Structure formats: C-alpha cells, structure tokens
C-alpha cells in the first residue's frame, strides 16, 4: 500500500483516531513511500515541531517501508493527468500503479472522489482500518 502524506501528519501526532490506528499497525504492513510524500511530511514536521530529520530517519530506516527515491515514468503521470488529476497528485497516483500497490490511503478529497477511475483502491484511514481489520 501507499500512504498519502496526510496519513502520517494526522496519524503520528494522533490528531485523527483512524490515522493514528493505521500508524500503530504500520509495522505489520508492506508500505511504499513516494519521495514526494516523504519530503512533504519532513517539511511539515520541521515547520511545526522541528522534527523533520527525526521523521526522515524513522521512515527511511523502517524495514517494512520502501522509499521510492526514483520518480515514476512520465507516461504514467500523464495517464493520471489525463484522468483529471492535478499534476502533483498524478505523480502520487503514478507511484501507486508503478509499484503495483493495491491501496492508496488518503484523507484528500481530490483523491477519494476519483477512486472509481483507477486500478487500485483509494480509501481513507477509517475504511482502511476496517478493511484491514486493524
């Protein structure tokens, strides 16, 4: 699965109960983290808590998380742009397809509203927690 940046931002400080529950169980799941998501969360944690580097260490050293340092192929991004995704969201969706993940978990309404257009499931943390029986 791939998690959007909002899952880490809302789940690590436990601002949202479902996101926090997902974070609690992340060590048991196979997770891919696009570099753009890592950078977003790092920047946010640095701005709010001065803990950007600590987040970076956590995610890049966790055994079950694979950080996607390479960018997805251009044609995959274009595919999602043509489906109506914003360029920056298309890059994330392209990463999900690129690694063959089954789920993209996000609280982003722009993603959730397009869940019927893609080959993978786009669900929020509450649904993911229920689907994964966490």
């Amino acid at each position, binding site marked *: 699965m791939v998690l959007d940046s909002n899952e880490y931002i809302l789940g690590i400080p436990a601002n949202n109960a479902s996101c926090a529950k997902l974070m609690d169980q992340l*060590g048991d799941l196979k997770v891919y983290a696009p570099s753009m998501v890592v950078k977003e969360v790092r920047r946010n944690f640095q701005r709010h808590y001065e803990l950007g580097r600590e987040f970076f260490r956590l995610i890049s050293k*966790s055994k079950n998380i694979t950080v996607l340092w390479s960018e997805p192929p251009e044609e995959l991004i274009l595919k999602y742009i043509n489906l109506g995704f914003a360029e920056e969201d298309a890059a994330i969706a392209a990463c999900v397809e690129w690694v063959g993940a089954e789920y993209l978990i996000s609280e982003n309404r722009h993603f959730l509203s397009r869940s019927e257009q893609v080959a993978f499931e786009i669900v929020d943390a509450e649904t993911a927690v229920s689907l994964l029986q966490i």
Partner: protein
Amino acid sequence: MSVKTKEFTVEVPQYLYDESVKLTNLGLFRDLSDLVAAGLRRELREAKELVEFEPGGWEEGLARLRAQIRERKAKYGYEEPSEEEILAELRATRREIWKEEYQPRYSFGTG
C-alpha cells in the same frame, strides 16, 4: 595546502546545467566544479547521517517520535491546527515541492 582533486564526467538534466551556469555566472560559485562539490558535500552529509543508524522497528521509532512531539507541544504551548487547516497546508506544500523539484524533470512541466 591544496586538496587532491579528481576529474570525472557527470551527466545532468539540461535544466540543472542551465541553472548551474546561471548561478555560477552570477558569482555564487567559483566555477561549476565548486558548485558540484558543494552539492556533493551536502548530499553526503545527509546520507552519512542515515547510514550511521541501524535499521529499526517501526513501533519503537513511532513511539519515540510521538514522545518528541508531545515534548515540543508542551514546551512551546503549540496549538494544533484543525484537520481542514492541516489538509490545506499539505496541499500547498505538495504543490510547492512539485513545482520546485519534480515538474522540471518532466517534458510536460510548464515551470
């Protein structure tokens, strides 16, 4: 005492080369080699920090980070923004990072 140097060839995207020449011509770097060395020093510093740590479990790392966040919140009296505000901020950050770092790498990028 002069530092021993090594000559090698690097291949970079055209836009990076163009930006590098522009900033070097403005006098921010002695020459292109100086700029490349500065970039390598910065990247190696970060990479070294990472390899100094052994891979660890998610649970213990998460617990440590949560404790650090609680400490910072208590110390600075940090007031958490609403979920809507957080999501709006993240959208802006994603747009910013995309434009700065990713969009120029693709041919459809408009800058």
